[in-house]
């Protein structure tokens, strides 16, 4: 486990030295500045617009990082063969995988925190003060982070057994599917055959439900998120993430490197 931590910190160090990340974060901050501009056009709802656009920016940037770097975590090491010397050390493949995961999640946490700080500063700039109700924005950011962690896990899983391009497509596919899982459950049952209805229902639980993490509307209107939901979403991420990472470890531990 300690060795996983070694890998994690190195992954974090790699991300820090990768200048691409800074560009993305800078772009996000730019988006927030844009939000200020847009907010000034729509008088009366500046707060809503700024929070919505800001959170959207954090989510999108986070998504890009999670998918592209998530897939590259393992495939780059396999491609460039940097992995070879590493696996000769007394470290297990699953420790390596876990370390990579933790490293990227740590990177994402730092990035989203930076962007969240930017958002709060923008909010202060526009409203000249912050209220307690604005804390819900932080909850929204935390939920985004949970969502991103799941996406990283999925990216890791797919990159263990397919090419990087396919892994990206699958991960994005799962993300989009995960957004509509809620709708899947609400589909009117009369329209489908019972077999189809059962299949859809099962599918809606197997796929990750990213709608769980969507509290953008509440954040935009300053409504508090109950602690129970925070706990539930955290546990959901832990459980689902464990499933995905275990599967990834199982696949990776049997993979013949080229």
């Amino acid at each position, binding site marked *: 486990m300690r060795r996983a931590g*070694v890998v994690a910190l190195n992954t974090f160090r790699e991300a820090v030295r990768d200048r691409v990340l800074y560009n993305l974060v800078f772009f996000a901050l730019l988006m927030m500045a844009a939000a200020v501009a847009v907010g000034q056009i729509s008088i009366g709802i500046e707060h809503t617009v700024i929070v919505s656009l800001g959170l959207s920016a954090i989510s999108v940037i986070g998504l890009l990082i999670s998918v592209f770097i998530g897939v590259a975590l393992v495939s780059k090491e396999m491609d460039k*063969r*940097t992995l*070879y*010397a590493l696996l*000769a050390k007394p*470290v297990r493949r699953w420790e390596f995988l876990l370390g990579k995961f933790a490293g990227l999640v740590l990177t994402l946490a730092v990035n989203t925190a930076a962007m969240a700080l930017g958002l709060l500063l923008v909010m202060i700039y526009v409203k000249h003060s912050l209220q307690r109700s604005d804390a819900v924005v932080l909850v929204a950011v935390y939920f985004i982070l949970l969502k991103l962690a799941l996406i990283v896990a999925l990216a890791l899983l797919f990159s263990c057994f397919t090419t990087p391009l396919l892994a990206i497509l699958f991960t994005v596919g799962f993300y989009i599917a995960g957004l509509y899982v809620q709708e899947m459950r609400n589909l009117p049952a009369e329209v489908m055959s019972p077999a189809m209805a059962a299949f859809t229902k099962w599918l809606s639980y197997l796929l990750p439900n990213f709608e769980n993490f969507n509290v953008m509307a509440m954040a935009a209107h300053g409504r508090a998120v109950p602690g129970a939901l925070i706990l539930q979403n955290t546990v959901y991420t832990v459980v689902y993430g464990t499933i995905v990472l275990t599967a990834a470890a199982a696949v990776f531990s049997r993979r*013949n490197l080229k």
Partner: protein
Amino acid sequence: MPGLAIEIENLTKEYPYGFLHLKKKTSLEGLNMQVEAGEVFGFIGPNGAGKSTTIKLLMRLIFPTAGSARILGKPISDVEMHRDIGYLPEQPYFYDYLTAAELLDYFARFHDLTSADRKERVGRMLKKVGLETARRIQLRKYSKGMLQRVGLAQAILHDPKVVILDEPMSGLDPVGRREVRDIILELKRDGKTVMFSTHILSDAEMLCDRVGVIVGGKLRGVGAPGTLVDMKTQGMEILFALRGASNAPLLSKATRTGDCYRLQVAEEELYAAIEQLRAAGVRILSVSQVKATLEEFFMNLVEADRAQASAVEVSGK
């Protein structure tokens, strides 16, 4: 068995390919080989013979279709055993955003070393491979030779008992090769076991206690470089010069270099040939034994293998 650093038993690796993966390419077939503790073992063969495959199988980068192996008496699936082995991959590439010192430190952390110990070893290794001055430069700026040296450093940093090197001399200039040779000899002096693969036969002849020759996925011979070759003495060579007489009977079979001629005959025919030449009035300069080099032994195997492969193709198997 004590005394055996590496034991390989019936190691086989097949790669399925083609439509629906129905065809199989055998890159390693039933390899049985042992490396004794404390020796330098050369694993030689042409490109694609299965050397890298064997080493990757040993390091568990790929998994065998059949067979097993043990290092230091422990099965290769034992990850803890990796504490005592060092590995240099073929054409190594490392995280290019790290410096040499950082990379060695990173790898060192996977072993249970104290922080001070780690620091000391990293420094010592960098000195040993001659990268001290470049320690703070990012690896992306390193030349191939420098990368090879970093690779070597990370392989021996933790003072392993067995060192496995995959083509350690590739891409190095003669100076670099000399340095690597020296390090290998130093390791041997320290009682380590070294196994390395190469297709440069002269290195193997010079360094190794024993060599294993692998061609076409099969082991063709194991032994000291001398013994392998001894079995293939090609006969005797007569060096002579003409003394006026220009129609010596065996002239057509001789090769000419300047004024001297060399004639190769089988050992049994030596005296008959000398008699013929003497009768022709030729001046004999010397008679010596012709030893095939490892190179020729090698080439014969490769040729035989290719002939067999094309015969197989022709027969339509």
